[in-house]
């Protein structure tokens, strides 16, 4: 029972007929995810990977009771797909798509606020509740059912760090990549809140990177709420040159804010142990939570 998705999640795949959509539908089903429907306009009636395809999300929801969606829809149509999912009553949307214009995301987030849904991403690897269900593109092999909550702005770096968590004998309650774009649906603080109330999570690993101020905001939250769980962190980009865009739009350092050193300082001031190397995370966990 993860904090976002579980065996009860009834997943809808938006863009199921595309290359990535069908490939990952296969992998997600293989992992045990309950995929009840796919949507691609004009492909209604098809069956892909044993999943019935619908023309519209509203149709799919009506006929299958889908309550979570994952979207592989290309950037130019991606916000429309999110709007559609939210409007059809989907409670949780995971947008894998990268390259969505920020202005479009601003509109989407306003809409989501109105309708009370939750978005993960865009430009993110998705969510996994190890042993139960995967919504997204994360490679399942590194994950193991356990009690560490993982939240990350990165994709592959998440897998890297999770591999050390798992290697150290721990496992993950929920691991989620929230995406690195400037405008995203769910931020560190939101995940910290969910983990706080989760009986199955006993520590949190927060994987940050340069750009923005989400790490600082999270640090403030941890300090102000006297956060009940131990939090460990790694921040990527300590050696990144200033003012360079490192791969995705979120990772810009400009002026005096958004640098790794500031983020690390803020986190450390809030009592968070910040790792210098990804492998440190495994060591921290062992030291703080005891050998498993």
């Amino acid at each position, binding site marked *: 029972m993860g904090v976002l998705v579980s065996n009860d999640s009834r997943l809808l795949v938006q863009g199921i007929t595309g290359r*990535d959509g069908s490939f*990952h539908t296969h992998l997600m089903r293989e992992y045990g995810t309950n995929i009840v429907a796919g949507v691609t306009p004009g492909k209604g009636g098809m069956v892909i990977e044993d999943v019935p395809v619908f023309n519209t999300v509203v149709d799919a929801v009506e006929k299958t009771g889908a309550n979570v969606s994952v979207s592989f829809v290309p950037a*130019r149509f991606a916000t429309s797909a999110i709007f559609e999912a939210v409007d059809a009553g989907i409670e949780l949307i995971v947008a*894998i798509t*990268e*390259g*969505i*214009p*920020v*202005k*479009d*995301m*601003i*509109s989407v*987030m*306003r809409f989501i606020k*109105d309708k009370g849904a939750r978005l993960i991403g865009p430009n993110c*690897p998705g969510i996994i509740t190890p042993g139960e269900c995967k919504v997204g*593109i994360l*490679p399942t*092999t*590194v994950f193991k059912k356990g009690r560490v909550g993982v939240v*990350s702005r*990165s*994709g*592959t*770096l*998440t*897998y*890297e760090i999770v*591999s050390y968590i798992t290697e150290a004998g721990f496992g993950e309650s929920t691991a989620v990549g929230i995406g*690195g774009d*400037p*405008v*995203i649906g769910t931020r560190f603080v939101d995940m910290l809140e969910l983990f706080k109330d989760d009986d199955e999570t006993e520590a949190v690993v927060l*994987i940050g*990177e*340069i750009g*923005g*101020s*989400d790490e600082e*905001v999270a640090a403030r939250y941890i300090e102000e709420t006297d956060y009940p769980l131990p939090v460990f962190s790694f921040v*990527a*980009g300590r*050696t*990144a*040159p200033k003012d*360079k865009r*490192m*791969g*995705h*739009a*979120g*990772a810009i350092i400009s*002026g*005096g804010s958004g640098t790794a050193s500031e983020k690390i300082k803020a986190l450390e001031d809030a009592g968070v142990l910040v790792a*210098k*190397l*990804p*492998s440190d995370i495994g060591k921290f966990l062992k030291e703080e939570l005891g050998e498993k």
Partner: protein
Amino acid sequence: MKIHEYQAKQIFKKAGILVPEGDVATNIEKAISTSEEIGLPVVIKAQVHVGGRGKAGGVKIAKTPEEVKKFAGEILGMDIKGLTVKKILVGKAIDIQRELYLGVITDRSTNRPVIMVSTEGGVDIEEVAKKTPEKIHRFTVDPAYGLLVHHAMNLAFKLSSDVKEVREIASTLQKLYKTYLDSDASLAEINPYVLSADSNFYAIDAKIVLDDNALFRHPDYEEMRDLTLEEKIEHEAKEKGLSYISMEGNIGCVVNGAGLAMTTMDVIKHFGGKPANFLDVGGSSDPQKVKNALHFLLMDEGVRAIWFNIFGGITRCDDIASGLLEAVGEMEIELPLVVRLTGTNEEEGKRILSESSLDIHFVRNMEEGAKAAIRLSEGGG
């Protein structure tokens, strides 16, 4: 994408915001003819994608034709923070009564646009924010309704008590916000926004940063792209689906994912090595991308070792391996190769490479990889 002041001013002018008369020049003759057209005195400003050009001597007021010639000559070709000035803006000098600041930026913490205004124009706004934060007035726009008239008026009343001025400022704020939206900007800024001695408001300086993800909606902006050699390479890489940034070091890195790529650099440095680049082959898997990545890496003659640090997710290790094999077949690569493959189709990828005749240093994880790459880049075996 960054654009130059003169380009931002063109966009503002189209939106109905008053900018001083002027034109861009790439040589002294054009600077002189422009100054004759618009009349002296003129301000000559270096057009480079970097801040602090004023302090570097890249902005001068010319009161005579001789001064135009002199200053244009001095500024063209000048080096500002490593960038050579190739263009100057020659603009009518405005007699300044008051300087204000107007800006719109995307606020990541609220996922909304924020309008910022200040009576402290003409100076670094981040300095103002640090020293006298009470002099910056912010307003977060609700995108469902936009910047309404009374929002703009309420902000403008913070900058003036003269209702004629207030209406003018408010009107400019609405145009600025519209420009921000219409151009898909992440920043649109007028600093300073100047009340002239003859009581007109001018955008004296202009800054617009465009959202790269939205450029497909603005094919007309493509011609505004003005890149340094370094940026050109980055841009070329981007067109091939790669994020590539050249650095000073000697270990060429090929990584999938931005966070992992940054961490790869961090880890190399941590162990005393020097990364030659940031290189993210992106999420989607495609052997061709690996070939392209090696192409960019090999342009850098300082590279002494190549390190593939791949953690497969949406990227499949076998695709990476195939791409590497193909590339080696086509290009002459004599540099030592360190390879770390983990994740999706890992076994398949390793098998492909093992079966080849390549001399590959396989490593199990990132830290091993960093150490191996450093050793090899220093000539070790």
